[in-house]
């Protein structure tokens, strides 16, 4: 009885539950034409199983995920960044948490290959978003062994573990991109990765001025059950362009919005003690001075401004998306990637 190619891969312990594009040699060769890099070049070892990822290995996983060849440079660039020590892929693969490496792709190449940052950017319908993020996840599953219940103790995972790749909504953003805000040129192709949960949506169709608007968004940043309140942690705030416009029209720069969110997002000890993950020992480990025995002490969600990754993304509408981070010592990474 001939082996059904779809069943063959769907039954793999590292399957993400969806069919893959069958990796034939011919398809892999076609994928490798998108890069001048040597197929045997080692990108790195994916923890915790530490299996090697060469350029060819990455091409195979990108192909299986459904990537077009022109997406391969982004997948290669992203994996290189994600294997940096400070990103702590090892910790995230094993953790009980459900965070995933969200890729925010800036620069002209992302636009060229169609990474989407407008309506529905966190959801289905956009091949580049879906397949680039999926290629990374397939490698984390197969090469890294971060499989729920086997190599990973994740309680729920989150849907962001299927795929996690977006661009900003450049057309409707009043500000510079995340990459430019970090000092890159606008014509550089840059990926930023942060370990975060699926977004929670913060609706506000009432605010007409920034203070109230940002106050509401800050509220979505400070849940008792969010690790952002109890550890140093990254956070992504994807302001919808309608919300960004309210701030920009009031004369606020991206930096000012960023600063205001950092100031507003927090809760007093008195509140935090009433539920969630509050332990005074955790507060004593913050890289900032707080007094966990002072009930009026304000605990900020953002312990270091560099941990808040503010972008403009999504379609037009009164909503901002907030993605909470992890507890375990992952620092977001960013870098320019080559497109050849």
């Amino acid at each position, binding site marked *: 009885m001939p082996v059904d190619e779809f069943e063959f891969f769907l039954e793999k312990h590292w399957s993400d539950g969806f069919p893959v594009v069958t990796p034939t040699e011919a398809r892999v060769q076609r994928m490798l034409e998108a890069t001048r890099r040597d197929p045997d070049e080692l990108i790195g070892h994916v923890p915790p199983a530490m299996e090697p990822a060469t350029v060819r290995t990455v091409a195979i996983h990108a192909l299986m995920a459904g990537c077009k060849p022109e997406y391969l440079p982004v997948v290669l660039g992203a994996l290189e960044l994600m294997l940096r020590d400070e990103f702590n892929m*090892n910790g995230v693969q094993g953790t009980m948490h459900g965070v995933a490496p969200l890729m925010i792709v800036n620069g002209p190449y992302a636009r060229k290959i169609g990474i989407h940052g407008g309506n529905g950017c966190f959801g289905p319908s956009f091949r580049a978003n879906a397949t680039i993020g999926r290629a990374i996840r397939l490698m984390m599953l197969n090469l890294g062994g971060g499989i729920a219940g086997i190599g990973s103790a994740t309680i729920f995972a989150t849907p962001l573990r299927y795929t996690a790749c977006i661009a900003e909504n450049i057309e409707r953003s009043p500000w510079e991109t995340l990459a430019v805000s970090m000092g890159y040129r606008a014509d550089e192709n840059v990926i930023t990765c942060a370990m975060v949960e699926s977004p929670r949506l913060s609706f506000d169709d009432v605010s007409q001025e920034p203070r109230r608007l940002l106050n509401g968004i800050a509220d979505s940043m400070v849940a008792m059950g969010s690790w952002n309140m109890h550890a140093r942690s990254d956070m992504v705030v994807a302001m919808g362009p309608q919300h960004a416009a309210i701030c920009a029209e009031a004369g606020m720069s991206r930096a000012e919005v960023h600063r205001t969110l950092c100031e507003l997002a927090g809760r007093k000890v008195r509140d935090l003690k009433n539920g969630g993950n509050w332990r005074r020992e955790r507060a004593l480990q913050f890289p900032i001075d707080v007094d966990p025995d002072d009930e009026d002490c304000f605990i900020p969600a953002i312990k270091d401004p560099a941990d808040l990754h503010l972008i403009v993304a999504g379609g037009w509408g009164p909503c901002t998306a907030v993605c909470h981070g992890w507890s375990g010592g992952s620092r977001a990474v960013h870098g320019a990637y080559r497109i050849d």
Partner: protein
Amino acid sequence: MCSVHDTIEFEKRGVPATVIITQAFRNACVFQFKGKGMEGHPYIELPHPISNLKPAEMRELTLQYVDQIARQLTA
């Protein structure tokens, strides 16, 4: 998880080692030992969760495993 990694690094350097985990991480622990070439390496498994045990309770629970630890570190 990293305590497994650390345990393996001790073994590689000739130092007998074991790791104490909680039950929720059993699968990850077994998987990691296997994946790193030490399939079947012993470990100590405490019930999960432990984070809310008071110090005296934690000590009392831990004492139940000391002899098992000694066995894993000796021939």
